[in-house]
């Protein structure tokens, strides 16, 4: 998106409950995430699926397999290959996006694959292939982290053995203040933007990217902030999976 016009006020000082706090353009506190909605098993044709919403960002992930590796020469003798596709729907942005995979989407597909590879127990399915499709239905910043959150849930829903679920969230510096879960407007004017994804039970970082400039102290603080958000998302992920199981029990 082309950034034009005057920079809006993104951080204001507001008195809440007698205390002066920093409030963001949408009324959130600096360490507050957007409302998150997670649903598992939203598609019937896929082996596993999940829908994740971070405020206005909405993504759907679908998992197929393990199945026969195609093309066959891509298969590996000791483990399964993960094939990821991150794609934004043409209607996901304010202006129509071409439906073809752009350079950015190809790169994010790779980023997604590399974030999932450490947690998927691929060695259980040698020469097979696991397909992960992520479709961005609506984009409002933080799509790659939402995509990772959704993809790991879809894998768990498909019954693919995982070392841990993966949750992701972005942190950034807006108007000199570290903020959690940036949206599109904040992202456009941020001095730094850092998407982080972790496997919380293993205490492992699986994705860490950064755009912009942070000091070392700010980086450490940002990582702590991301961790706090990730633990909250992880709790919601587990809740969503358990909710689906409760439904299955009622049916059967």
């Amino acid at each position: 998106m082309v950034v034009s016009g005057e920079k809006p006020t993104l951080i204001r000082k507001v008195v809440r409950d007698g205390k002066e706090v920093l409030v963001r353009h949408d009324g959130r506190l600096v360490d507050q995430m957007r409302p998150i909605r997670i649903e598992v098993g939203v598609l019937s044709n896929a082996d596993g699926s999940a829908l994740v919403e971070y405020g206005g960002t909405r993504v759907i992930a679908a998992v197929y397999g393990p199945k026969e590796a195609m093309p066959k020469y891509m298969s590996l003798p000791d483990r399964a290959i993960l094939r990821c596709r991150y794609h934004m729907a043409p209607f996901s942005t304010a202006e129509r996006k071409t439906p073809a995979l752009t350079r950015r989407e190809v790169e994010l597909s790779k980023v997604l694959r590399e974030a999932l590879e450490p947690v998927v127990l691929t060695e259980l399915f040698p020469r097979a292939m696991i397909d992960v499709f992520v479709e961005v239905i609506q984009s409002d910043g933080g799509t790659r982290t939402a995509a990772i959150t959704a993809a790991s849930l879809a894998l768990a829903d498909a019954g693919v053995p995982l070392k841990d679920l993966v949750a992701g969230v972005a942190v950034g510096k807006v108007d000199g203040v570290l903020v959690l879960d940036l949206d599109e407007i904040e992202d456009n004017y941020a001095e730094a933007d850092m998407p982080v994804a972790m496997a919380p039970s293993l205490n492992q970082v699986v994705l860490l990217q950064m755009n912009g400039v942070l000091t070392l102290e700010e980086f450490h603080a940002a990582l702590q902030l991301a961790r706090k958000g990730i633990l909250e998302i992880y709790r919601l992920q587990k809740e969503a999976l358990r909710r689906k199981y409760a439904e299955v029990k009622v049916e059967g």
Partner: protein
Amino acid sequence: MTAARLQKLEGKIVLPGEPLATIEEFLPEEGVYVDNGVIRAAIYGKVRIDSRNKRIRVEPIKATLKIPRRGEIYYGFVSGIIREDLALIKLVFDSQMERLSGTFTGVLHLSQASDRRIESVYQVIRLGDFVRVQVVNEHPLLLSIKQPQLGVVAAFCSNCGAILYRKPGIDHLVCKRCGNRELRKVSTYYMFVDRG
């Protein structure tokens, strides 16, 4: 492991990454993995403990995902006959008729296609037949229909496409619509039997 903790763990619904026990306490089986001496759940399901044999596993809520292994039995369709001595079979269901997570294409060679000498695989199977096969090798995925329980489970008439019936006492399969007779390596599990 104390009895109280053990009782709490048995049947518990767990999610990937959840720590269950240590490797000193149990032998890990399916649905779990070991990380740094800790046995953790790998799938979401129920914990099952075999305290006599000291085994722990997680029972999945959906069917277990699997890929064809040597000795296992699968159902599939004949998807291509590429040579007189080679047929391709697309595996779709496992021996319990549970759908696989994807299809796997295996090769059936003439030497594994019949318990007697034949000249061509056309003498035992045809395109589109539904067959019960055993995996004899994983890579390349080689299949066999030699045993009596293996072979064609449902076949269709090459002339008119109708279902072929097995008649007790006759080697051939018979088409009830056009009267055509065809040869197959018929499994004892053949679905359509005409006793009339």
